[in-house]
């Protein structure tokens, strides 16, 4: 059993992480071709770096990568800002309330992802609930362009990813030693100073984990930008989708995916170091 477990872990990694990655890498150095599948494998059509050079030189792809990182960074920052007080509140809640509150936090997951996005569309579109209510109250005369905007995009991101930020923060904050905060207060620190000089610095590993758990999936996100974001949002997830399924240019899509992975590894390393520094 003891020898079997690492073996199983290795097999899992090989089957579900290494193998797909290898497939994508091989795809990225293949040549595009007419037919099914729409490419020639390197050992048939020869190794081609065209896809990489296209992705790296064409401003459209570079912009989509940058846009994805910006949106993901923004979404992760927003989630973190909102998750921190929520997680802190959870740790300070009475023990009898903690279960129900955590349950409420996870409740949105009980509904499918698309219906939840659909609900936002229903709320935000021109004839949606928000605009209707505002119009009936006489606060606005024409509908506000709420949907297909940056705020709508970030609202959707926040809604979808907030629990991923709250949970690691909650885990980290609930393990903190309350005596440290008492010691700070005893030495003359006001509650705000206690928070900024003791609670917050000690929560950095948890915050780094929370940031990454939002940042990584958000960088590849394409449904929310597509359905809620402004038209033509340059996000790599969307571009990947278009290259695979509309342009059927698999090598370019694969090269883009490899590049995105490389770009994501940098912040992962950075945050891992932040997380293990102490």
């Amino acid at each position, binding site marked *: 059993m003891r020898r079997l477990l690492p073996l199983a872990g290795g097999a899992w990694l090989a089957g579900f992480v290494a193998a797909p990655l290898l497939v994508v890498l091989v795809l990225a150095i293949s040549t595009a071709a007419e037919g099914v599948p729409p490419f020639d494998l390197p050992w048939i059509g020869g190794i081609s770096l065209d896809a990489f050079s296209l992705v790296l030189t064409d401003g459209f792809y570079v912009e989509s990568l940058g846009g994805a990182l910006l949106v993901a960074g923004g979404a992760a920052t927003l989630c973190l800002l909102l998750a921190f007080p929520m997680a802190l509140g959870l740790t300070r809640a009475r023990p009898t309330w903690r279960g129900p509150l955590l349950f409420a936090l996870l409740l949105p997951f009980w509904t499918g992802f698309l219906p939840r996005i659909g609900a936002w569309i229903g709320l935000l579109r021109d004839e949606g609930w928000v605009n209707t209510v505002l119009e009936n109250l006489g606060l606005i005369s024409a509908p506000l362009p709420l949907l297909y905007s940056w705020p709508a995009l970030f609202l959707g991101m926040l809604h979808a990813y907030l629990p991923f930020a709250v949970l690691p923060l909650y885990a980290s904050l609930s393990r903190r030693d309350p*005596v440290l905060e008492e010691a700070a*207060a005893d*030495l*003359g*620190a006001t509650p705000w100073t206690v928070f900024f000089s003791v609670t917050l610095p000690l929560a950095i590993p948890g915050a780094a984990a929370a940031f990454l758990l939002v940042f990584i999936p958000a960088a590849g996100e394409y449904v929310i930008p597509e359905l809620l974001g402004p038209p033509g949002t340059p996000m790599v997830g969307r571009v990947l989708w278009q290259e695979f399924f509309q342009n059927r240019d698999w090598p370019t899509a694969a090269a883009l995916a490899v590049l995105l992975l490389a770009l994501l590894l940098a912040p992962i390393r950075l945050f891992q170091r932040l997380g293990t520094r102490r």
Partner: protein
Amino acid sequence: MLLSLQGLSKRFGATLALDHLDLAVAAGEFLTLLGGSGSGKSTLLRVIAGFEAADSGKILLEGRDLAPLPPHARPLNMMFQSYALFPHLSVADNVSYGLKRDGVAKPERARRVEQALAMVGLEGFGGRSPQKLSGGQRQRVALARALVKRPRLLLLDEPLGALDANLRERTGFELRALQRETGAAFIMVTHDQQEALALADRVAVLEGGRLVQLGPPRAVYDQPATRFVAGFLGGANVLEGMPDGQGGFDCPGLGVTLRPAVAIPADCRACALRPERIAHLAHADRPNSFDGIVEDVAFRGDDSLLLVRASGGALLRVGHAEEDGPPPERGSRIALGWEAAALVPLHS
């Protein structure tokens, strides 16, 4: 009086942690709060520091009521049992934390941190992380951090509890030297009676949230007021019985009438007798003596402890000094006696 506690009460659910407690502490005094777990000693410290609010009563520090002040506004400091050093700050930053909160200028801060670290024998440790220090060194950092603000009153929650036995004695002496040097009043919580007796100017014994006895260590040890204090401090024998009305004290458990040196109040129902005050006799033929059978012998290094069963059924703890030769064998019959002055009538 530096600190005056008046009628302090604190209830946690059904338990009364502090029960109308009155206590006054003089400036520069070293007071130990001694008690078992649940005696309220730690609660008392937390109430003084402001981490718990008292249900009723007053806490006056130099005549000023502390009750409405949050912990950070109370002009006293506390040293925590777990030391509570900030793991993300260096030793120097830990010590200067309180000075920074007071707005002390940077050069002055550095000077005082240096001074405080020197005071506890940790010169040159300022740049280290507290997590890389030994338990004894961490204890000193915590002490330096608590003393660097020069409080008039320092609260110490089991400050020696996490140290091993050898270090504890040395650190105890250092603690008292520091207390004399700084002139601050120390209130130290401990459950260790030897620590309490060795360090304090006065010992306050707590039981069930009440102050049951307060006095200099020797007085509390020699003249325990209650059964609890007698048993808790030095493990005195508590002999149950009744005054016989003629200056004696009938003790059915021993099968004899005790003859104390002092007058016994009519409502007295027990006397304390310390194990080390009981001596071996050739015959139990005088007042304050009895025959018993040795039930067990435990060697303790500097002496042995005998458990002796008296004819009346009482089991007594009896000290046997090393210089008196080998202790009697288990099962042997021995005669024991004590001076009249060794008997202390207890109030309750």
